[in-house]
């Protein structure tokens, strides 16, 4: 045995040596290529962040968060009304789309069989691809038919955004519900549990962390929408606390307006636009981080 081992050992080492060199070269090359491509992809992102931060910092002051644009024509003013509008419209969108989206996902995963379920899945797919301006036009049409032409309100904006958010919520919730093992449903049934309680007490709590973080990513998706809101929520310089009447501004629309309709004092309009952009980016970042935390909190514990 010892002879055989001695006899074979050098040839194995030799083979290893040659294989190793080729593999090492390929490995190094691949590592550099991948890192290089990653670096390339980072350039626009870093550049965008840098621009937003460097140009947005100058107006990141108490005035910006304490004032609306009412009566402001030059320097000063702020985006409090737009921040309020973003909060209200986003909140209303969540109220409209999250329950509906989760309910649709529960239907598709737990009850849906046959042609109707397939139709729902197909329509959700179609909704995912709706251009946001079309969602805006739809909401505009619905509200014009009910309240007369040209009506603008925050809730109309929320309706338009819901059309964009519902498919995201349905899709992510559906994925999460499908990840719940059938073993758990069977365990609950075998304990003499009706189906609706199995879903409410076992399936949803098991999937809730994924559903919540998926929904929050849906929020991140719609919080930057501009086009549909320009159509149906309009633009206002002043505070509007009422979702159901009058125009309401959100941060993206605010940025657009500051950029597009500059007064004589061009620089202060530009500064406000960049600061609003920075605040919006920060908002999306916070939502993303929060969704990770929420996923962690709700995730089933194993220790």
């Amino acid at each position, binding site marked *: 045995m010892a002879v055989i081992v001695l006899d074979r050992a050098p040839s194995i080492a030799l083979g290893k040596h040659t294989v190793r060199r080729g593999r090492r070269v390929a490995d190094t090359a691949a590592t550099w290529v991948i890192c290089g491509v990653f670096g390339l992809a980072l350039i626009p992102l870093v550049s965008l962040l840098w621009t937003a931060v460097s140009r947005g910092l100058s107006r990141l002051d108490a005035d910006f968060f304490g004032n609306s644009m009412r009566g402001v024509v030059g320097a000063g003013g702020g985006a409090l009304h737009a921040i309020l509008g973003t909060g209200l419209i986003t909140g209303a969108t969540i109220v409209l789309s999250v329950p509906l989206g989760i309910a649709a996902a529960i239907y598709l995963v737990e009850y849906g069989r046959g042609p109707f379920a397939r139709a729902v899945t197909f329509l959700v797919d179609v909704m995912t691809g709706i251009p946001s301006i079309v969602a805006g036009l739809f909401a505009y049409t619905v509200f014009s038919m009910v309240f007369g032409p040209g009506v603008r309100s925050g809730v109309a904006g929320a309706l338009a955004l819901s059309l964009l958010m519902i498919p995201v919520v349905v899709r992510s919730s559906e994925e999460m519900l499908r990840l719940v093992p059938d*073993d*758990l449903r*069977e*365990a609950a049934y*075998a*304990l*003499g*549990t009706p189906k609706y309680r199995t879903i409410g007490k076992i399936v949803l709590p098991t999937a809730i962390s994924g559903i919540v973080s998926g929904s929050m990513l849906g929020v991140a998706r719609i919080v930057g929408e501009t086009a549909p809101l320009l159509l149906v929520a309009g633009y206002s310089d002043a505070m509007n606390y009422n979702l159901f009447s009058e125009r309401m501004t959100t941060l993206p629309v605010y940025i657009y307006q500051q950029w597009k309709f500059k007064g004589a004092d061009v620089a202060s309009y530009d500064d406000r636009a960049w600061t609003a952009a920075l605040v919006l980016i920060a908002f999306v970042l916070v939502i993303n981080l929060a969704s990770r935390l929420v996923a962690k909190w709700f995730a*089933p514990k*194993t220790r």
Partner: protein
Amino acid sequence: MPKAIEIASLNAYYGSFHAVADVSLTIAPRSITAFIGPSGCGKSTLLRTLNRMHEVIPGARVTGSVLVEGQDVYGSGVDPVLVRQRVGMVFQRPNPFPTMSIKDNVLAGVRLQRRRLSKGEANSVVERSLRSAGLWTEVRDRLDKPGASLSGGQQQRLCIARAIAIEPEVLLMDEPCSALDPISTLAIEELMAGLKATYTVVIVTHNMAQAARISDKTAFFTIDGARKPGRLVEYGPTAAMFSEPNQQATADYIAGRFG
């Protein structure tokens, strides 16, 4: 002979596939009955018809009758949810609820049925069930830890505790040890010998030594080929089945000549 379960000309289907053909047998109360046979012979399917878990799978259906303590579980107007409260089940793979603590897992059945328990009652149900499942001494000081923190064998005993916490009349076990190591298997076998005093136990197993060790009666099933339905070959006292079976097929299977 008193009868806990009477199965009469039972057929089970998955869509157009006939899985179990014309099985009739009677199971005595407070005994352990083992279903053995090669894979695909319909023994798990038959087990799942006893608490109407078979029909949970889309397209699955059953003909014939199953009487539990004299009441037909397939009678018209019988709610499968209530049947499952009387006929509990333990599955092949341990499946404690991942969102719940050990204690909540034991109480899951009670709570899912919306029965109200005082704190004292709940604690006594937890202790009694965990003691019956032979798990109490191992987990008594960490009842609030997640069920998933236990080992596989402990998780399976937790599932047994969960099943007996709702005090069923019959306990069905679908290969409860096939995912466990020999020591955990031994623990569960010892436990089953104790459970026999209170419950009627029906167990599906691939392990013939296990069937011989623990069961009072054994039913041997087989299939005549792929896509053919499983059928009952022989049913009788375990000792007789393993020493002098009536049928050649049983003798071949037990001797390891096929399957």
